[in-house]
């Protein structure tokens, strides 16, 4: 296997196939618990842990598990990691665990995780499955932080409880309420769509014969 494939396994999930921003998977936590940076970060870490652990284990047992019971086995593996994460968070960061509420337990049904097991870890060697899980997990974390930063700055004027907007700023409370999640996600998707389109147009322009490109750009 070439280094290029490895690199692709890892990088794919971070941006080009970002689970939240491009594939629109795992939207439920991305909307529900991103009202502060701290919550987003802890949720991102918990999901990363579950994803990597399950991908490793699923890839490890893929030859032993009969096809008929593979989904039940995957869910069992995922649920075990989620429960471990849940108990660990409650012991280490009780306040954030309380703020995340049911959403830690709901990682079990995050389709992003089961999706990676079905689509990748159950068909590929352990090394590649881990790289894929790292990439997807980091991609999810990036998306969560993009949501959390915008929402906490606008909704509370802070990042990780440190004041970032000076002076008399009346926080836009709606951004830490549920509608803020939808607004923020929509705005990010719009930015990404605009950026992608601009890039493809640029790429197309550069493929044109020189004369055409020059006139188009001049116009």
């Amino acid at each position, binding site marked *: 296997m070439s280094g290029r494939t490895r690199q692709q396994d890892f990088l794919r999930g971070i941006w080009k196939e970002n689970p939240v921003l491009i594939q629109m998977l795992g939207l439920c936590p991305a909307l529900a618990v991103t*009202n502060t940076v701290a919550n987003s970060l802890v949720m991102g870490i918990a999901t990363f842990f579950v994803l990597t652990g399950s991908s490793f284990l699923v890839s490890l047992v893929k030859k*032993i*598990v*009969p*096809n*008929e*019971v593979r989904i*039940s*086995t995957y869910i*069992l*593996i995922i*649920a*075990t990691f989620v*429960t*471990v994460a849940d*108990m*660990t968070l*409650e*012991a*280490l960061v*009780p306040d954030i665990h*309380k703020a995340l*509420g049911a959403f830690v337990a709901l990682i079990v049904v995050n389709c992003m995780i089961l999706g990676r097991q079905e689509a990748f870890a159950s068909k590929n060697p352990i090394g590649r499955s881990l790289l894929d899980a790292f990439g997807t997990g980091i991609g999810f974390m990036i998306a969560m932080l993009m949501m959390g930063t915008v929402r906490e700055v606008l*909704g*509370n004027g802070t990042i990780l409880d440190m004041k970032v907007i000076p002076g008399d700023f009346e*926080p836009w*409370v709606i951004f*830490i*309420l549920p509608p803020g999640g939808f607004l923020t996600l929509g705005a990010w998707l719009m930015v990404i769509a605009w950026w992608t389109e601009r890039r493809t147009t640029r790429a197309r322009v550069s493929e044109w014969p020189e004369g055409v490109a020059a006139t188009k750009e001049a116009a």
Partner: protein
Amino acid sequence: MSGPPAILAKPDVPAWRLFVTLGVAGAAAGFLLVFVFQLTAPIIERNKAERLAAAVQEVLKAPHRYDTLYVVDNALTTELPSGADPRQHEQIYRGFTEEGAEIGYAIASGEPGFQDIVRVIFGYDHDAGTLLGMKVLESKETPGLGDKIEKDSSFVVQFDGVLAPLAGVKPRDGTGDPHEIDMITGATISSRTVIKVINNALSRLEPMLESYVASTPSALAQEDTR
């Protein structure tokens, strides 16, 4: 002679393999969970106890020590009947100064608020009939609005010295009555919930406190007789 179609020739996975796979996976998961549970349970328990102790310290204004009283059969007692599980009984905390004088009682209680049960702990000076302070233990009230019941210090500070029973008023309607609490604009239901928690808990516990105090000489008096 042709054999059976390819799809039938594929050997079936025997049923025992399905059983064994799921059985082994389930057992392994069970072992792992029990292991992690035993590691984390004491820490979780300790965190909860620490948080409660800190809250008692806060609402009783740093007592030198405090006793735990249990509600057993509608009466307060420091001694649980043997074999009773302390977690099954409501607990209140009686705080004392360094000299042994009673500061008051810390009472934790809850009522449904705007989103979910709001749990509050408050300090109560039984002799004076006034509150010593209030702290929200648990609430899922709306961030930015209802959660001001714990984050807005000008609301919280009112619970120090107010006379029970409490009466919630809109800030501009206040008459300066010592029972009054100014409610938070935009968080009326949450403010009212806090007041209701305290009033209901007091009306429930006041008779018990009364008979408890009557039956036990105050700690200071005990000190004097010694």
